[in-house]
């Protein structure tokens, strides 16, 4: 009999009535045992009434739609997806830096193979996935961002954003990376490329910083970025008379040539997602 069905409510309601009637009937006819009969009759009738009210409320509110639900059985287990080892994990066991040779490298027309850096805890946290700091431009990255995989690319004039699209998938095969919470740093000449990459992977990049050469530069070359992407511009000097020239919501940082890239990377580092092991997952249900 269903916990929320009418039949159960009728049965319990009838037992309340029957118990009440029986108690009344036996009230003065039970001789010496009448006090016991009366007490038990009252208690059982009260219990049946409370039960009946509870069933009616539960039927309307669906707190416990079934006996299994009442027993605390959800019929569901959350599970973690097994983490897929990166193809380069063994190559990265004893080193934190390597020249990355992904499958599509030739189509990217880079000045040199990308450098990939992993943080010191990459080999020891064998089931963790790390967010990515992607650096596009002519700079010498020498150390990984803590808690993140750093990939440094030197695009050339022949590098197209369309060709670079495969970077995200290629990196995901070779290194253990998170499916979100990435950030990007780009030079002035690579800003358009960075903007395109962010648009083709909406939801992937949380933040983009552009290292500009001119004190009056804007982020115009970046183009439209997905809403919610935090943006920063690093200029070599504060622009005299140009305060507030950045679009609203854009962080303006001032740093000259030797520290400009590091300033940009430090800022994007604050926007990174955490390095995490695969989450507990439930079925996604029948939602579209």
């Amino acid at each position, binding site marked *: 009999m269903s916990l929320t069905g009418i039949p159960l409510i009728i049965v319990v309601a009838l037992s309340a009535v029957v118990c009440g009637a029986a108690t009344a009937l036996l009230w003065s006819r039970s001789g010496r045992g009448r006090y016991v009969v009366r*007490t038990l009759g009252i208690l059982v009738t009260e219990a049946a009434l409370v039960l009946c009210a509870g069933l009616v409320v539960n039927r309307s509110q669906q707190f416990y739609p079934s006996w299994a639900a009442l027993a605390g*059985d959800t019929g*569901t287990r959350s599970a973690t997806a097994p983490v897929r080892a990166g193809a380069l994990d063994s190559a990265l066991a004893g080193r934190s830096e390597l020249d990355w040779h992904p499958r599509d490298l030739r189509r990217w027309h880079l000045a040199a193979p990308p450098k990939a850096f992993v943080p010191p805890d990459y080999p020891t946290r064998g089931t963790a996935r790390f967010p990515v700091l992607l650096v596009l431009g002519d700079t010498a990255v020498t150390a990984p961002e803590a808690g993140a995989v750093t990939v440094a690319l030197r695009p050339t004039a022949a590098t197209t954003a369309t060709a670079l699209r495969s970077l995200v998938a290629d990196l995901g095969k070779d290194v253990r990376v998170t499916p979100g919470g990435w950030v990007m740093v780009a030079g002035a000449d690579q800003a358009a490329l960075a903007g395109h990459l962010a648009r083709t992977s909406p939801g992937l990049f949380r933040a983009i910083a552009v290292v500009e050469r001119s004190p009056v530069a804007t982020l115009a070359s970046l183009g439209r970025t997905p809403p919610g992407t935090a943006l920063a511009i690093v200029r070599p000097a504060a622009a005299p008379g140009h305060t507030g020239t950045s679009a609203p919501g854009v962080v303006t940082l001032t740093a000259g040539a030797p520290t400009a890239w590091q300033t940009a990377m430090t800022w994007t580092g604050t926007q990174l997602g955490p390095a995490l092991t695969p989450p507990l997952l439930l079925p996604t*249900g029948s939602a579209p």
Partner: protein
Amino acid sequence: MSPDGTPLLVLALVAVALTAVLIAVGWDRGGRLRWPLRLVAVVAALLSVSATVLVQLNRMTEAYSTDAEPEPEAGPEPAAEETPGGSQLLTVTVAGKASGLTSTMYVYLPAAYRTGTQRFPVMEALHGYPGSPRTWLRKLQVRSRLDTEIAEGRMAPAVVLFAPNTPRQLLDTECTNLRGGPQSETFLTVDVPAYAMAHFRVRTDRAGWGLIGYSAGGYCASSLALRHPDRYAAAASMSGLAGPEIVVGDGTEDTLHNVVWRLEHLPRPPVALWIGWADDEQGTRRDALRIARAARPPVSVTTAMVQRGGHSHAVWRQMEGPAFDWLSAHLARPLP
């Protein structure tokens, strides 16, 4: 005696038994006062049964308790429950300047909070109605769940705030600013963040702030995230509806306070939502699917479902691990 303790329930049951005995034995006694006495006995019996039901309901929802009620904040060190080297659970009092509300709040500090100088992401955890922040601790065992998720690396260390949705247990605010009533929305979205930023090493940017809730708190989480996207980046709703189902007082129950209406009629903010439901609970299932259908970029919706369990603590115990993991992945990491 605590209103949610076993002794009070036993006392109430004893009262039920005694009133039954009183009626059984005293029915034929009392002489000329027999009828008034019978009436008194029957009323006493009804009261004792009602009291027992209320006590048990309170035990199930943890709406009222005197346990771990805070001392008025005496010094800089709030009352703390300690595990050596592990996480901490503090009880603090938030005197809200913006809302004018003063309430007790529990604060979960992860084990990593003890050492170092990191600034942590923050999750505001909202309870159902009836209920209280204690429900998270007692019924959903949230502290050990958080300890586990963080220890397993599925969740980054975070500060979790358990603030009350309402200043009065019998008043359902649904985390709104009730016209002529408590300003719970302001308390939760202005005063609580201000307190946390002033007293704890936490991130202050929207990327580091998220909401999570069950039942009414689930509605609160998704609604507050859409209403305050400048303060929150993500929200997880466990068995939450799309609307408040109360009268807010300004006629916006079905519009500005409705998650689906906002998604369909207002510019959509870049907010990530996690919507979970038990498949045998029709109301929340229907609303969850409506929210999922109405969402368009930049609002992202992740759905999650348990097979059965209705609207119960068992469902939320099952959901909270996946929900906290998801929320952590959608917030920024602790700042070094």
